[in-house]
């Protein structure tokens, strides 16, 4: 039986009076690729930030590889964090560093690797995502949006993590570049055998990179199932979301005063 890599049990998180996560229950198996879909502001990013420790949940339990990390302080998370990689929506590349140092950052500062070896690996990872070594010497501000996503992906996989989070990996890209990024994600994840959670609004991307899809709405997981079953979910919210329809329960709730 495949073990559960990540478990979230009744996780709640509020910001002031605004309830963002309202009892999220979710589990991801080792090597599985889960995509979380849902509208803006439904708590997708907050959920993965709670898992990684960027945000602290108000209540509930989060386990990574069986270890309860719910209330673990950042200073005690070094071992757990070394299992993670993350591609941010905007890239979140360090603009004070050249591209190769961005990619090598986790190796140098997280794994204490020497700079020469880290640079070699960084250049190899850049090549892996289809970027030439020349790009490694550029500043992130000199790159296009698609190239920044690729660099972000190279940085996320540089330490060969066991768990990778992708936060809206195709947002802001043209359809062709989005498909290139999807292919790269699938290839890289297959190479590493990593467990992944991806947040996206892009259903084409979700279908391509996921084994399983979960939908979050109003801070709760309202549906989850195998990717192939999403078209016949029988859930009105999922139906409306995947067809991008303006009419449906989600719109009605948005329009409520």
């Amino acid at each position: 039986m495949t073990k559960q890599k990540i478990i979230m049990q009744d996780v709640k998180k509020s910001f002031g009076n605004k309830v963002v996560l309202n009892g999220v229950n979710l589990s991801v198996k080792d090597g599985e690729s889960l995509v979380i879909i849902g509208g803006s502001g439904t708590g997708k990013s907050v959920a993965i930030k709670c898992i990684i420790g960027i945000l602290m949940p108000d209540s509930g339990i989060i386990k990574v590889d069986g270890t309860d990390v719910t209330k673990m302080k950042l200073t005690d998370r070094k071992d757990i964090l070394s299992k993670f990689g993350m591609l941010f929506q905007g890239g979140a590349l360090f603009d004070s560093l050249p591209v190769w140092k961005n990619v090598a950052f986790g190796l140098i500062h997280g794994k204490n690797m020497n700079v020469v070896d880290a640079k070699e690996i960084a250049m190899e990872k850049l090549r892996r995502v289809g970027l030439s070594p020349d790009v490694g010497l550029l500043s992130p501000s000199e790159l296009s949006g698609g190239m920044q996503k690729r660099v972000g992906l190279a940085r996320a996989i540089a330490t060969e993590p066991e768990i990778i989070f992708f936060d809206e990996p195709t947002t802001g890209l043209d359809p062709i570049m989005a498909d290139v990024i999807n292919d790269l994600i699938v290839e890289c994840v297959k190479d590493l055998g990593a467990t992944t959670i991806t947040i996206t609004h892009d259903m084409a991307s979700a279908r391509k990179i996921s084994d399983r899809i979960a939908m979050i709405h109003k801070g709760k997981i309202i549906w989850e199932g195998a990717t192939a079953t999403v078209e016949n979910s029988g859930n009105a919210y999922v139906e409306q979301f995947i067809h991008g329809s303006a009419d449906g329960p989600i719109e009605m709730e948005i329009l409520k005063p």
Partner: protein
Amino acid sequence: MLTILNNALAIIGRFVLGALAVIGSLARFTWEALTHLVRPPFYWSHIGKQMLTIGYFSLPVVGLTALFTGAALAQQIFVGGSRFNAESVVPGVVVIAIVRELGPVLGGLMVAGRVSSAMAAELGTMRVTEQIDALVTLSTDPMKFLVIPRIIASVLTLPLLVLVANILGVYGGFVIGTTRLGLNEGSYLQVTMDFLENSDVYSSLVKAAVFGFIIALMGSYHGYNSSGGAQGVGKATTDAVVSAFIMILLANLIITVIVFGTG
């Protein structure tokens, strides 16, 4: 009438709660920074880079401020002292005023204006573009990597800057005193040395170190906790400078009363 009173109390209550929340948040950030100060790892290259940014690049503005202030002070004291035939006090008053007060305070304020704002803007931009979150995912503690090098560099650098400011401030008074006001060069220096005590220099350097801590703390705190995009970064920058100014002046008063309060 009752409604107006209720509204007024609600406004006061919200203000008090908001102020307490900020004080609590700042105290927590300060405590976290202090605990990180004594725990490895230390990013020495970052500390060096920050010392260059805070110290070396602040030298012109701090030096010129001290030079001009010392010169103007000598002119003012000469004019004021001449009413009581006390022109000879110029070197003594200049050195005391510069070393005890104006060197550290003006130096601190100039560096705060230059550095706190830059720190808040840089860290604030990193916050809103998720670069600080990215550090966490790369197994790097953002407090250790971003805040601590700035605090260490600022605390080490400010005393050096203030030392230079003190020397240039006194030199400014000396130049005006000897070239414009007709004071004798030898006796000017002699009176300056006679008036200056070790405790003046020590208090000046202690003030500088405290101001250095405040400058880096305020810049880091407001930048690190900024939110809301470009507008949030702009607000963080303004708040960093204003709070650093106020805290420097308050800290100066407290240290002055402690060190010189008993006469």
